[in-house]
């Protein structure tokens, strides 16, 4: 099991836009470097990527939830 951590404080979004589909869902496969969401800090957006390949086990932060640096955003079951 690997954690995907928030690099920044701000607001976490699972979707690239309000009317868009989520980047990934629980149970989806992710590759190394794949984007799983974005963190908005002071109107700038930073992509959150997975460091490991595997399956998304669970998101620990809801869409547009607030995050602090180091917060676990999601856990990945390594492939």
């Amino acid at each position, binding site marked *: 099991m690997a954690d995907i951590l928030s690099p920044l404080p701000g607001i976490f979004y699972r979707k690239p836009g309000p009317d868009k589909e989520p980047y990934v869902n629980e149970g989806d496969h992710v590759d190394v470097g794949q984007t799983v969401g974005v963190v908005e800090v002071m109107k700038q957006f930073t992509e959150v990527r997975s460091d490991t390949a595997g399956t998304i086990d669970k998101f620990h932060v809801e869409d547009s939830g*607030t995050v602090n640096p180091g917060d676990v955003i999601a856990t990945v079951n390594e492939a």
Partner: protein
Amino acid sequence: MQRLFIANRGEIAVRVIRSARELGIETVVAVSEPDEKSHAARLADGYRLVGPAPATKSYLDQSAVLAAALDSGCDAVHPGYGFLSENAGFAAAVIEAGLTWVGPSPEAIELMGDKARARDAARRAGVPILQGSEGAVGHGEDLLAEGRQIGYPLVVKASAGGGGRGIRLVTSEQDLASTVEVAQAEARAAFGSADVYLERFLGRARHVEVQILGDGQDAIHLGDRDCSMQRRQQKILEEAPAPALPDAVRDRIRQSSVELARECRYRGLGTVEFLYDPESHEAAFIEMNTRLQVEHPVTEMITGLDLVREQLLVAGEGTLPLSQDQVQFRGHAFEFRLNAEDPANGFMPSPGTLERLDWPGGPGVRIDSGFVAGSAVAPFYDSLLAKLIVWDASRTEAIARSLRALGEVEVEGVKTTLPLLQALVQRPELRDVEHHSKFLESTPELLGGTV
């Protein structure tokens, strides 16, 4: 107007509280959860929680904001800038609920929000606009003839676009037809309308604007400003009056902006924005902002007026408290936007707690900020920490005073853009008014190699 609801945060909420208090109007400020301990919440007579940290769930939540205004017994709403300030639907809902909306009518907000309609209104009022096609473009030979008449380079713009979206540059005739086709397809997909028009392209333009004040019948101007110093289309340094502007151009943009305000029966403060080409001495309409602007203090410094007071008086009493003759201009003013960003690290936002906050003082120096020492700079909102506003009798003296004042600023706890502002104020291009809206991007040493 007895009790005013302020649907905003930070420095502009503080700014509105100050003017309201001097007029004997009570204030209630909207706050999100992290803003309950903000300086604005402490200064106001009261505050109301409108939602959690994300602006979409608090400051942008129209029904929560309106409910808070009604519930707190307010009889008027001031939207500040940003958030709901240019939302015609929200303005209409406020009026519908029986409250006074401190701003122009929903119809005026809507008109100016539509690029093509705004351009038409400007043309009818005699506001200079860039040479371009009348309405949507033609086909084949007609299109090429229109292109030739305007000259190259030119831009293809989507009628329903705006804010820099839906614009394509064409440098020669051979690319015109194909670019128009692509632009029409994109415009249909992005904006639901395939209408595009052609407009002359201005390369190294300055950004100048005219402050107007209307009461729905008559309108006056409060002079002009220059906001050419920008990074990624965000203003960072503004001044008034606009320097190095020929008298004929200044008169034309001021008078025609007043005419535009009269024709759309504009009520309240508004700003008509222009591109100005210093080589051809041509000014052209960009858009009209239907709200109080961030940079309004430079106009206050050279006119001696309190623009928010005038705005509240017009909204409350319905008639212009001032005539054009009563507006006098004196001296020169600069505004510097101090942001919580790290210029050494690609202007990365820098939230945190302000351990130390020393502001400059002395003659002609003013600070507008929503923070005090010990305040937390939350990561959820924009990075504006404070506006340093400096006045002096001449532009040269105002630059010297600005450098002195910037040197007194001490901020600890977050990174700030202070080094960039100090470098800018010493640039010969600023002194000689040779800067333009792409100056920062084209001067990488100012940005530590990062744009």
